[in-house]
């Protein structure tokens, strides 16, 4: 019975069959519930072409990030020296794709770094920042939102005042100050982003769980003697999941944009190559005035592609969460 019911209304079935199948472990049932919900969302999400394309883009970048050492033709921070015997100088080379007679696919930077390889390795930094920051901001935000919305009262007040305070902090300037305090390091940028960015998820999830907790199925669970944590994890959480994913996918996009901005300003990690640091270097060496567009055009295109994919996946999810805008 459980199997059939779950394909239609996965979230509500666990009340009906509670007690009937004692032999199934509590954790197994929770896991099954989550699996079903995710499957449902996946099916709806992959329905749309733009979302599918975006997922392919993200997947392609992931493959590039994982296999970066095999794809890159050179080491990203290893100077490629050119010059006549005895005189070693690092200088930029035109891309071989454009007919420059060098071995460098997209040319080299003024510092003598291979641009193609930097681009490939930059994918790692972007995805690392995007995914980790998004997972944590969405996770922390959801947890705080659920707790605040479910308990209400003083707990809610206290948590929401923290969120209000965070909303008073301008994003980039705050990250700049935090990174200046913690030191320019990719992990510190991620940490600074997490500290600030869970605010939006928390606010939205809170208002959702405020209304959910008044719904009959939650009241019924309360009457049946379910504990707080049980209600939060099994009744509220699956229902706010679409919102969590929505804010998660937007979070990826925002984090990548923010990292690029921070690096561009000059507070990026000097030991890692990211698309932002590439842009910063190109500006520092006046690539603009020299017309060395192969240096600064590609990183921005990569940022744009990845970020727009995040936004489009987010929008696909928005249509699940808000049927009104379909």
């Amino acid at each position: 019975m459980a199997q059939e019911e779950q394909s239609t209304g996965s979230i509500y079935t666990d009340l009906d069959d509670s007690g009937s199948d004692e032999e199934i472990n509590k954790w197994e049932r929770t896991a099954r519930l989550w699996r079903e919900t995710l499957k449902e969302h996946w099916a709806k999400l992959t329905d749309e072409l733009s979302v599918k394309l975006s997922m392919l883009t993200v997947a392609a970048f992931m493959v590039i990030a994982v296999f970066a050492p095999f794809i890159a033709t050179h080491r990203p921070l290893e100077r490629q020296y050119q010059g006549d015997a005895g005189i070693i100088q690092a200088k930029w080379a035109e891309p071989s794709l454009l007919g420059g007679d060098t071995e460098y696919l997209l040319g080299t930077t003024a510092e003598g770094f291979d641009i193609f390889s930097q681009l490939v390795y930059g994918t790692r930094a972007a995805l690392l920042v995007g995914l980790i920051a998004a997972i944590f901001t969405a996770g922390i935000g959801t947890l705080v939102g659920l707790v605040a919305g479910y308990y209400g009262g003083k707990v809610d007040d206290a948590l929401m005042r923290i969120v209000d305070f965070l909303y008073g902090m301008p994003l980039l300037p705050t990250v700049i100050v935090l990174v200046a305090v913690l030191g320019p390091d990719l992990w510190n940028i991620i940490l600074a982003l997490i500290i600030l960015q869970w605010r939006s998820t928390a606010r939205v999830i809170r208002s959702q769980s405020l209304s959910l907790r008044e719904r009959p199925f939650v009241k019924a669970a309360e009457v049946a003697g379910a504990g707080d944590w049980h209600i939060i994890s099994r009744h509220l959480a699956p229902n706010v999941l679409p919102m969590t994913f929505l804010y998660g996918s937007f979070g990826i996009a925002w984090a990548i944009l923010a990292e690029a901005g921070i690096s561009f300003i000059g507070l990026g990690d000097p030991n890692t190559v990211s698309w932002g640091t590439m842009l910063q270097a190109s500006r520092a060496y006046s690539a603009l005035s020299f017309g060395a567009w192969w240096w600064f055009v590609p990183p921005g295109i990569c940022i744009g592609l990845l970020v727009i994919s995040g936004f489009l996946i987010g929008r696909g999810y928005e249509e699940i969460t808000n049927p009104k805008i379909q």
Partner: protein
Amino acid sequence: MGKASFVVRRTLQLVVTLWAVGTVLFGLFRLMPGDPTSYVISSGMTQEARNKLIESYGLNDPLYVQYFRFLENLVVLNFGQSFHSNQPVTDIIATYMPNTLVLMLTAFVIAYILGITLGVFSGWYRGSRFERSTVITALTARSVPTFYVGLIVLWIFGAELGVIPMSGMTSLGTGGQSTGFFDMVFTVDFLKHLMAPAAVLAFYYMGYPLLIMRTSMLEVLSEDFIDVCRAKGLTERTIMFKHAARNALLPIITAAAIALGYAVGGSVLIETVFAWPGIGREMVRAVLRRDFPVAQGTFIVLASTIIFLNFIADLAYGYLDPRVTYD
């Protein structure tokens, strides 16, 4: 709870938030590595003179004394003097803030006029190719970093075509800001400098009102009074602008106030790209050179702009929409 007590409560919240931002900032800057006095103290100085200087900055006092002095100064808007240039921070803010505001407001007005208009049409012609293309444009505009669009614009129009200046707010030799702010603003030279960064920003900010307006239009169009308008025989154009758009405008107003706050806060990047002497760029430079008083002061100005505009948005919402109740 009535309206008056809402205003009082919200005002209290405003004060508390400002205090919290100030306190966190105070803590953060004290944690920052690097000796702030190294810029003013030369190595040839005797230890005695050095101590005297540190003393004069008040950096030797116990932390709580420094903290209370900080709060006291915050209330009277005294942010101290720059370690770097010895100018009062208030003067520095007064110099750079108008530059940021001119740039941001210009971009904002253009962005919201275009965004709202496109959003109205996009919501009205739902399902059309026009709607899809506006949504894609809006998303693209928000996806590509503004500083990158700025770089590309500078490259094409500045470096290659030479039609826009490469950096700054005025050309050398025009006297710039020293001739007086308004004398500077109304010159062709200034407009030439303003054009590119304002256009780039407007393109970026346009997406937000466009998407909100579209969603809001979709919601309004499903309401009964639109059918009544049709039944009365009003023309489509009248319904679109006089009835639907006017009602759909409500969420835009609060969103605009909040977005303007964040725009001022986010001025950091665009000002850096175009070397626009605004408050965001000044903040970055102050952080990079460990000029705490300036960094602190400019940050507080940026943060309070956001906090204050959020406050205005909250109050305006209740004022503009009679359906809002305070409970």
